[in-house]
């Protein structure tokens, strides 16, 4: 095995069999033992059947990527073994349901028999498998019991009875080294996005279901009361964005979430938010395209579209986080920035980021608060689009003692439609000044992150979820790693600073054309090589390492 403190576990089964839940329980078990954990999900666009699997990585260092090979394979069905046996390490071990799969090698657990004998429901067979697997991994009964009590909502005692029986029947094959570290909350990127926005004062979330953004809708709806917010599912993405703009005009912080196709429908509303100078936070989680593409698989190919989303001349904030911590921080920060600059702001994520499970640093939440926007003083006649020096006009809302006129039309300072060239120029230039302020704001933020060997002449540039594997390989090979985090307004100065001493820049991206190259080119930055992947699956560490070594 690779490293005594770095294991990869694949948990697979048919859709509806509960492999994802099993994966999460196993991840939490190791998290409680002090290990860093990361889960990548692979599932198909179907309800029952097919093949779904989770890859759980447990390690003594924080890694948000997966290995090509697995040390353990936990098979809920025979198909899982057929599909993944070839990706098992030489000394890897298969843990399987002995009642469904006939084989000599590995750890067979009579999970169906145990469940039946003890009068459990068929789904409880998974509990027997998890228990048997835990025993094989050398996890103490107490740790397992605690985890099961926490995770299972129904029939806890029966599940524990089944777990105990399976646990007792299986022999331990591995002695895990203990790591002294407190467990961290495990969050998907989408859950982290939800929390960040709530912390920054989210009032209303609007959405139309679309993978891979749907779990933001589910999570916020589940916690609607806890968070004291409104969650509203509307008839389509056009309704979603326009309602969000309406709510913001009326003074409420609103956020919307979607993926490429839905984002395409929202673009008229993004343009509206820019003209009406109405704050709105849009979460766009990329999936494979064009069109319907491969709905449950990821991609980074919406970058150029997002940079140019919406007709007309305007700048929007676009930030591409790479893990749950950044998702949380930036959804909160972007909601505040949207309100500070009265502008659309887009958090550009992707399937891997939205749906993978990460360790979350709770301290991030303490760095987010609801920041006060520029509000009208209440004195004098109110002008919604007052021609201020900064281009930012103080906000007032219906219900205030003012006449508040928001509009999609070119307008004068009060918000009355105009068509004369003098006023058009006045207002275009007011907005241009605001865009300059937005650029200046980016210069003050950590818009580009640099990691790895800072003296290396060779640097990798990568963004979004691809950072996970790309950073790991960069560190392994002693390369510099540059992550552009804010993509619009583009942090040119910070990027140029990051490039100091670099003579070869290699882009690693999950797209067919290498879209980040075009953005960098627009800013006078040359990309020397591109490593692209477009089977809509994330890079594994080994796969990327091989490709990089060839350069």
């Amino acid at each position, binding site marked *: 095995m690779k490293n005594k403190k770095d294991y990869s576990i694949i948990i697979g089964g048919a859709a509806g069999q509960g492999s994802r839940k099993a994966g999460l329980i196993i991840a*939490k078990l190791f*998290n409680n033992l002090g290990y860093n954990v990361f889960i990548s999900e692979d599932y198909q666009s179907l309800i029952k059947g097919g093949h779904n699997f989770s890859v759980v990585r447990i390690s003594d260092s924080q890694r948000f990527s997966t290995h090509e090979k697995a040390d353990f394979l936990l098979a809920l069905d025979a198909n899982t073994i057929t599909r993944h046996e070839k990706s098992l390490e030489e000394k890897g071990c298969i843990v399987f349901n002995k009642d469904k799969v006939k084989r000599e090698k590995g750890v067979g657990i009579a999970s169906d028999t145990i469940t039946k004998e003890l009068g459990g429901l068929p789904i409880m067979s998974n509990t027997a498998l998890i228990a048997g697997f835990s025993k094989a991994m050398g996890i103490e009964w107490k740790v397992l019991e605690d985890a099961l009590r*926490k995770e299972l909502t129904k029939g806890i005692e029966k599940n524990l009875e089944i777990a105990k029986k399976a646990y007792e029947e299986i022999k331990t094959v591995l002695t895990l080294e203990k790591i002294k570290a407190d*467990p*961290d*909350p*495990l*969050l998907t990127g989408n*859950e982290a996005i939800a*929390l960040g926005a*709530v*912390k920054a004062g989210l009032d*209303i979330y*609007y959405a139309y279901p679309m993978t891979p953004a749907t779990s933001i809708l589910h999570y916020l709806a589940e*916690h609607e009361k*806890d*968070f*004291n*917010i*409104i969650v*509203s599912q*509307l*008839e*389509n993405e*056009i*309704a979603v964005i*326009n*309602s*969000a*703009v*309406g*709510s*913001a*005009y*009326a*003074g*409420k912080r*609103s956020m919307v979430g979607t993926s490429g196709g839905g984002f395409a429908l929202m673009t*008229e*509303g993004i343009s*509206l938010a820019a003209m*009406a100078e109405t704050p709105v936070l849009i979460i766009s989680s990329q999936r494979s395209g064009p069109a319907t593409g491969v709905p449950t698989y990821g991609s980074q190919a919406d970058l150029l579209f997002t940079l140019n989303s919406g007709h007309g001349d305007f700048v929007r904030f676009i930030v591409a986080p790479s893990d749950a911590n950044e998702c949380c921080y930036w959804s909160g920060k972007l909601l505040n920035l949207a309100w500070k600059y009265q502008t659309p702001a887009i958090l550009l994520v992707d399937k891997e980021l939205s749906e993978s499970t990460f360790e*979350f640093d*709770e301290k991030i*939440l303490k760095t987010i608060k609801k920041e006060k926007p520029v509000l009208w003083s209440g004195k004098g006649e109110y002008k919604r689009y007052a021609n201020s020096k900064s281009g930012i006009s103080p906000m007032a*809302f*219906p*219900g*205030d*003692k*003012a*006449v*508040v*006129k*928001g*509009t*999609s039309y070119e307008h004068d300072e009060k*918000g*009355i*439609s105009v068509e004369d060239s003098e006023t058009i120029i006045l207002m275009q230039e007011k907005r241009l000044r605001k865009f300059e302020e937005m650029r200046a704001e980016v210069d003050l933020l950590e818009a580009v992150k640099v990691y790895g060997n800072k003296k290396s002449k060779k640097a990798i540039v990568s963004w979004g979820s691809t950072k996970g594997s790309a950073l790991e390989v960069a560190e392994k090979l002693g390369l510099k790693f540059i992550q552009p985090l804010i993509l619009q307004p583009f942090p040119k100065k910070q990027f140029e600073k990051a490039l100091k001493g670099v003579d070869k820049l290699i882009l690693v991206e999950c797209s067919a054309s290498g879209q980040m190259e075009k953005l960098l080119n627009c800013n006078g930055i040359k990309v020397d090589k591109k490593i692209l992947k477009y089977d809509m699956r994330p890079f594994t560490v080994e796969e990327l390492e091989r490709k990089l070594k060839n350069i």
Partner: protein
Amino acid sequence: MENLETKCINTWCPGCGNFGILQAVKLAVNELISKGTPKENIVIVSDIGCNSKIADYLNLNSFYSLHGRSIVTAMGIKLANPELKILVFLGDGAALDEGISHLIHAAKRNSDINVIMHNNRLFALTTGQFTAVSPKGLKGKSTPEGSIEEPINPLELMLAANSSFIARGYSAKIEHLKDLIVKAVNHKGFSFIEVMQPCVTFFNNIQFYNEKVYETVNEELDSREKALTLIKEWNYNGEGKIPLGILFKKDRACFEEEATKHLVKDKKPEIEKCLQTHL
């Protein structure tokens, strides 16, 4: 009387039906204000088209939305602040072509907004093309031989979508229209008022309306059957008389009340509690 004028120059064609609607709105808003609605709680939401210029002509809160989207923008405003009284102005093209899904869903949800559809039965500002309510055979620049489509009956559609308030007015009957608007605003839930509005330039049917319209007082407002009879009296082509007035009204729970009832004033979000489930 509140002066609701702005300094914006009115660009409607002389004799346009929109003038009558604007006057009725001013009267209705004044009545609402005189009976206790704070002026600052009134919001005009308009769409795109001649009708939507009304936002510029009223010195009231307003949001001049995108084409077909005024209804959803209005819903967003109402959900954010249910205290506000929302008047949505849009044309037949916006309501029944570009934004028909929003109209149906807003009615279905019973969102407490008041939709006033200026029905001139064609796209006017784009110089005359057929809409979903244009009579079959309407000659426009996109259908020089005449439109080949039968018109939709928007009130029948609203009844099917479970709109809780359905009315029809006429831009030349200002006092009558004012009453309809006040009653719509006072109705808790979704209100739809269709206003027959002649377009003097592209579809001047003033005489047609003057001959066909009549005011009706429906005694059985919550009867769908009675409403349907009145609604189907005119087929949006040439046949039948055109009844004006409230044609249907049936109270039911409104969307914003249901969607906000769990909110607790000044309650801080319980994030820590939620994080515990992630350990």
